[in-house]
């Protein structure tokens, strides 16, 4: 009897000790990624894996190939495996209540990456995301400073019509230039976030604004459209970066190459490191139970030609953008 008690006590102290070491280092975390819809998404995946490796987290990765049912299956799988936490980059906003309740019932904290969901905030521990309005604002503030009170006509390449980054990045930029009557958006069209459409739409802008002479700056909702537009500006016989200033958002490697060549002026980073803050919050929670705020906003950092773009390009190139 005593022996049995002893072994139970021993066993539980051992288990406790084990649990202690688990919370310190080897967490097992499931990550349900949307898929590889864009270069940024691929970079987010590789940065998440890097962050996990750096912190000694055992990351279980599931690629949902843009399908919610795959994500739900993956989350159920993680719950069944009894992971310590689940990271989800939700592909759509709705339909998560049931599966996230299952995770909650199993006491597994869920952290949303990059996108939010419709539904009770009780279903997840926190959400790590960028502030898209702020991104637009940072770009706008840069332009206000650059224009320095001079007249500046801006053309805008919007993202896919109706998408939340397009709406918010437009809003933020407009807020930033609102107090500066010399800066005006004279044309705004959608370039669907792609290079080809960015180039085609910019060609139209250049024709419509007497060969581009009226245009002082281009604001593109993502770097890919800016890269396409830069080619259109060159083909029209103007110098991108000098004749027409180029500011965009995302900070993908190719825009740093353009900045190094003097063809783009500034970009606002949408950091692919959403997992870093998520792991920080998780480690703190596991250590002493501190609950993070419901929303963790990542930094929207501005890069210009002065920030050694070639070096950043080399750093970012390997991330799978």
């Amino acid at each position, binding site marked *: 009897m005593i022996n049995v008690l002893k072994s139970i006590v021993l066993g539980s102290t051992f288990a406790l000790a084990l649990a202690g070491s688990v919370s310190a280092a080897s967490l097992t975390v499931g990550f349900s990624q949307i898929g*590889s*819809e*864009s*270069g940024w998404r*691929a970079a987010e995946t590789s940065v998440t894996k890097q962050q996990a490796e750096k912190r000694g987290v055992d990351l279980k990765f599931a690629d949902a190939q843009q399908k919610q049912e795959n994500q739900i299956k993956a989350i159920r799988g993680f719950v069944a495996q009894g992971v310590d936490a689940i990271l989800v980059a939700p592909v759509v906003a709705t339909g998560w209540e049931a599966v996230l309740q299952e995770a909650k019932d199993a006491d597994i904290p869920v952290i949303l990456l990059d996108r939010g969901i419709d539904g009770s905030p009780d279903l997840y521990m926190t959400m790590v995301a960028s502030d898209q309005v702020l991104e637009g604002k940072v770009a706008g503030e840069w332009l206000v400073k650059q224009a320095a009170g001079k007249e500046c006509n801006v053309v805008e390449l*919007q993202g896919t*019509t*109706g998408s939340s980054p397009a709406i918010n990045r437009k809003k933020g930029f407009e807020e930033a230039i609102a107090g500066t009557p010399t800066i005006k958006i004279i*044309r*705004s*069209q*959608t370039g*669907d976030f*792609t*290079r*080809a*459409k960015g*180039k*085609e*739409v910019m*060609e*139209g*802008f250049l*024709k*419509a604004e*007497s*060969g581009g002479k009226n245009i002082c700056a281009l604001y593109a909702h993502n770097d*890919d459209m800016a*890269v*396409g537009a830069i*080619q259109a500006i060159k*083909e*029209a*016989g103007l110098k991108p970066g000098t004749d027409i200033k180029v500011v965009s958002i995302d900070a993908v490697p*190719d825009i740093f190459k353009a900045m190094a060549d003097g063809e783009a002026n500034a970009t606002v980073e949408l950091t692919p490191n959403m997992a870093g803050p998520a792991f920080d919050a998780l480690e703190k929670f596991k250590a002493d139970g501190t609950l993070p705020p419901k929303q963790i906003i990542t930094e929207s950092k501005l890069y210009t030609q002065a920030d050694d773009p070639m070096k950043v390009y080399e750093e970012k190139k390997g991330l*799978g*953008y």
Partner: protein
Amino acid sequence: MSRLVPGLRKAAPQFVCLAMILFFNWLAFPGFFDLRIQDGRLFGSLVDVLNRGAPVAILAVGMTAVIASKGVDLSVGAVMAMAGAVAATMTVSGHPLLVVLLSALAVGVACGLLNGLLVAVLELQPIVATLILMVAGRGIAQLITKGVIVTFNDPGLIFVGTGSFLGLPMPVILAAALAIFAVAVVRRTALGLLIESTGVNRSASTYAGINSRLLMVMIYAFSGFCAALAGVIAAADIRGADANNAGLWLELDAILAVVIGGTSLLGGRFSILMSVLGAIIIQAMNTGILTSGFPPEYNLVVKACVIIMILLAQSVSLGAAGWLPRRVPAAKSKEA
């Protein structure tokens, strides 16, 4: 000449539409017809219409033949992405231009052959058979590029997309050459007649001695070739292969161009030049929307309204009611 006059009369609705679209473009943006020389090439909105319309025009040339044979090729957009991906990755790994171009075009032909085999030999319905590659092709393209936009700086390949010849952009030259070649082949030989006959009634044509199986495989292979050419141009234009977006939904634009051109989706009579004109009409509308300064929320609605009007203008019953200057097509003769 005697054949040209009825041909032109038949094309009247399309020419009227194009003229009207150009007129509205001019109203919305008075500089629409301005042309100037920039770096040794013509520069202006009209050139943009031709240049941006070239990939869809090239797709429409192949699509016309497929639709005339009572088929449809939904895979052309995905084949564009694959050909672009192959061209970009091979260029990056240092292969010479000729090898790159031939490989990319060969990929297109191979995809077309696959479609042709599924349709003509295994007798799958064309819409289903080509849907397979429409879905899988984009995935294959993403595998080739490993999900990133593969960028290149090879001047030879870039020339295909952005160079110029005789003052016109290369894509326009390539599209024109392809269209003229295709028209010459189908109309100077019996090939066009054979395609039409297969499209109207395949079994009757087979009994009449036409090797319809081989003919259809060749037609799909040609469509694949056209798609690959458009894909190389699209990639060269942006100096990169964007597997996610290259050629996305362009199969629908190509089908629309063929329909605007007056070729029936039920097969039979077709006109390659009219399909090219259809592609130009679509692009004139797109470029017009871009230069007009409308908010982007209106793009699709404006586009849809214009398309409805174009198709109504071609409508047989409206023409018969005497509303529009159009002959009721009684004679089932071939016209280029």
